[in-house]
């Protein structure tokens, strides 16, 4: 499964994932705490500049940005209709700043680096019996099974189509779930043999 990460190297690729996450958290908190339009406009301009300086790497984010534009437009128009244009501007600018920086982070950070940060953040939970290193294993298993179950879904759909001449739709949901639960038991046995836990 492809990630949204861009291999085309930009200046932001060199910034450590933890710093980018801290920046995003601070930005997100900051823009939600302020109602000052000047501050929000400055932040939005800054975010736009950061994004523009990522260059060609941003080309692949066009569908995501179109979604952001559409959502912003809807919110803006709604607030104008409600005769609250200032509130609309504040909402749209907040959305613009945080979403744009979220996209920039995703575009320039390998998922393994982000996973390492998440595992580090989960380390204190070790005292409560949570094993942070499980996260990588579970993400890997999840990705493997997403592909596997999508193929299974297609097979069940094809089989249903051959029998009835119609798409399976929701009718194949129950057989898919049963096959998935049976697979889960087999995987659990394998994990037990492999990791002895």
């Amino acid at each position, binding site marked *: *499964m492809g990630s949204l990460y861009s291999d085309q190297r930009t200046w932001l690729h060199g910034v450590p994932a933890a710093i980018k996450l801290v920046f995003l958290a601070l930005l997100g908190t900051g823009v939600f705490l302020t109602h000052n339009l000047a501050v929000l406009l400055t932040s939005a301009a800054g975010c736009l500049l950061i994004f523009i300086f990522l260059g060609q790497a941003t080309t692949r984010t066009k569908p995501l940005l179109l979604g*952001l534009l559409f959502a912003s437009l809807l*919110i803006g128009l709604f607030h104008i209709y409600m005769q609250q244009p200032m509130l609309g501007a504040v909402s749209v600018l907040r959305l613009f700043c945080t979403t744009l920086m979220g996209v920039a982070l995703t575009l320039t*950070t390998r998922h393994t680096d982000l996973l390492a940060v998440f595992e580090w953040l989960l380390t204190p939970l070790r005292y409560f019996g949570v094993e942070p290193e499980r996260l990588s294993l579970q993400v890997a298993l999840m990705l*493997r099974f997403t592909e596997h179950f999508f193929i299974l879904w297609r097979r069940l759909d094809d089989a249903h189509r051959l029998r009835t001449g119609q798409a399976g739709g929701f009718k194949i949901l129950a057989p898919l779930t049963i096959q998935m*639960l049976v697979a889960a038991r087999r*995987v659990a046995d394998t*994990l*037990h043999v492999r990791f002895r836990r």
Partner: protein
Amino acid sequence: MNTSSLSIALVSLFAALIAVFGLIPKIDLPLGVPITLQTLGVMLAGCMLGPKRALQALLLFLAAVAIGLPLLSGGRGGMGVFFAPASGYLIGWPVGAFVAGWVMHMLPRTTPRSAAISAFIASAIGGLLVVHVFGVVGLVNIANLSWEQAIMGTLVFVPGDLIKCALCATVVHTVARGLPDWRFGG
């Protein structure tokens, strides 16, 4: 079978199921309301796995989305989705799955019929009510809508979600017959 291994497998598999539901094209109701199957995954996780594992499955799924995997319907992913107007619904998914699992655990589930009825109630409370409460809070805080406007906005999705509750109950009924030893609600 070791419960720790089973937990790892079930949590990963249900997170995968929710991801697969995101790959299946959405269905549009006549009024233009889209039904994506991913909230059905939230309901199913709660009813099938119980509160703790369902919570873990949804947190794992959201962690995978956060690290940039395009697992949400329409190929969306990354940190940006957690700041969008609908992010309240996303944040509500783990809580909704937990509540659905807890309600399922509390209700009778000895026969396929009782399990299906319990699943409908559990998914309506956890997968519908709780998720929509979080969604409304998100709309109020991020899109700056009033409570009334946000509630009216979210009500449009309720008919589709009620269909998903019925689907979840049907799946639970079939699984209860196909796998009689399965422990619904954990």
